[in-house]
């Protein structure tokens, strides 16, 4: 059933003028999953999210959300998708009460009791103006607005980028609650990778408008290994496994591989690596530009 896939992109691309912000993006995100969308600024994260919620339309390829087209089926889809844009825009002159009223007026499926209960739990007075709230409080109000329409899919564009650590943890906690209580599917983009391993179960790495890696985080952690060993070349390893990053120092070579099966090679020491290291490797960090020249004595002794 197509609805077990919450978000599906097929060769999806978006061009602004001469520049492809997103290119050839193909992925499937299962319903009920929490997906991290990571990548440097300008990688296409915002573009992908905006295509998914219908704020922009594809130049190439297709995107289907909950089995529907965000452009053609906007009327049917909008009540089922919650979106918090970058910088969590809110009407600054509105009070919290008026902001909730906006949600109530513009969403047929609005759950006012839920919204008020959340605001109360956050300890925010309804009569306070949005402009007077802190960044973390504004983010929580924006999230309340998105959740109170009881969406099936929640899209968040860099929601915690400007929040302090406490606000960040509280924000993510709210999302996790919504996932555990209502089974909401979540896609959140971030260039802060630290939180994502605990919160997300799927990962999409975007770089330069392309999807470099898509998969479940558990599988990714289980299949990626750091191989260290004496100075040598990666050819033999590369024949069997995918070498993501290769770096050489004077006496040692490190290879970050996506293992295709078990790594049987006594020359290499295996290490597990955390998600951030894997992501950075895919984004091109830490690569040696060229292999460093081998010292003369070692070359002679070979």
């Amino acid at each position, binding site marked *: 059933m197509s609805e077990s896939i919450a978000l599906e992109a097929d060769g999806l691309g978006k061009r602004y003028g001469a520049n492809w912000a997103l290119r050839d993006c193909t992925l499937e995100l299962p319903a009920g999953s929490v997906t991290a969308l990571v990548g440097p600024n300008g990688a296409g994260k915002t573009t992908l999210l905006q295509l998914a919620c219908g704020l922009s339309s594809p130049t190439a390829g297709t995107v289907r959300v909950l089995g529907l087209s965000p452009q053609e089926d906007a009327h049917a889809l909008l009540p089922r998708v919650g979106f918090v844009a970058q910088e969590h825009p809110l009407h600054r002159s509105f009070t919290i009460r008026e902001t909730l009223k906006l949600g109530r007026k513009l969403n047929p499926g609005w759950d006012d009791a839920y919204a008020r209960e959340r605001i109360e739990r956050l300890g925010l007075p309804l009569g306070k103006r949005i402009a007077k709230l802190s960044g973390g409080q504004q983010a929580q109000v924006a999230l309340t607005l998105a959740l109170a329409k009881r969406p099936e899919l929640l899209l968040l564009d860099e929601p915690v980028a400007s929040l302090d650590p406490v606000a960040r943890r509280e924000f993510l906690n709210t999302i996790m609650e919504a996932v555990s209580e209502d089974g909401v599917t979540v896609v959140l983009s971030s260039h802060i990778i*630290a939180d994502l391993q*605990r919160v997300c179960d799927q990962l999409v790495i975007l770089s330069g408008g392309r999807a470099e890696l898509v998969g479940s985080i558990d599988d990714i952690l289980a299949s990626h290994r750091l191989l260290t060993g004496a100075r040598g070349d990666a050819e033999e390893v590369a024949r069997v496994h995918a070498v993501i990053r290769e770096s050489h120092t004077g006496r040692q070579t490190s290879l970050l591989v996506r293992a295709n099966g078990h790594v049987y090679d006594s020359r290499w020491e295996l290490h597990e690596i*955390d998600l951030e290291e894997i992501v950075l490797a895919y984004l091109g960090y830490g690569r040696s530009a060229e292999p460093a020249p081998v010292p003369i004595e070692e070359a002679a002794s070979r």
Partner: protein
Amino acid sequence: MIAFHLEARSGVPTYLQLVQQVRQAIRLGVLRPGDQLPTVKEVVGSLTINPNTVLKAYRELDREGLVEGRRGIGTFVSDELPTTPPDGVRELRAGLQRWIDRARASGLDDESIEALFADAVRPPAVSRVA
């Protein structure tokens, strides 16, 4: 009641960390047969982690026979645990001590001993790559 903690920058998947902590808690007697594990909601609230992760961990523990889920109530430590008999543990302990003495006698320092040991005992995730 067990309190979970997370090593966020670990190469070990989150669900596995939870599984390992439950196993350890049972081994040490912190969790006894019949004790209730925290609910998914409680773990999510205290750790801010994905509820799917908790479910996956509990499913794995259920598969290993360490816990059982009672629908509508919660997840509980099994009344019958597949434990190694106490004699077996003592014998293993003694053998291990002898091995350590031999390793030290041949000149290995503690760190090298630990590295050797870790190398031989890889966590299940790595062997599963095979």
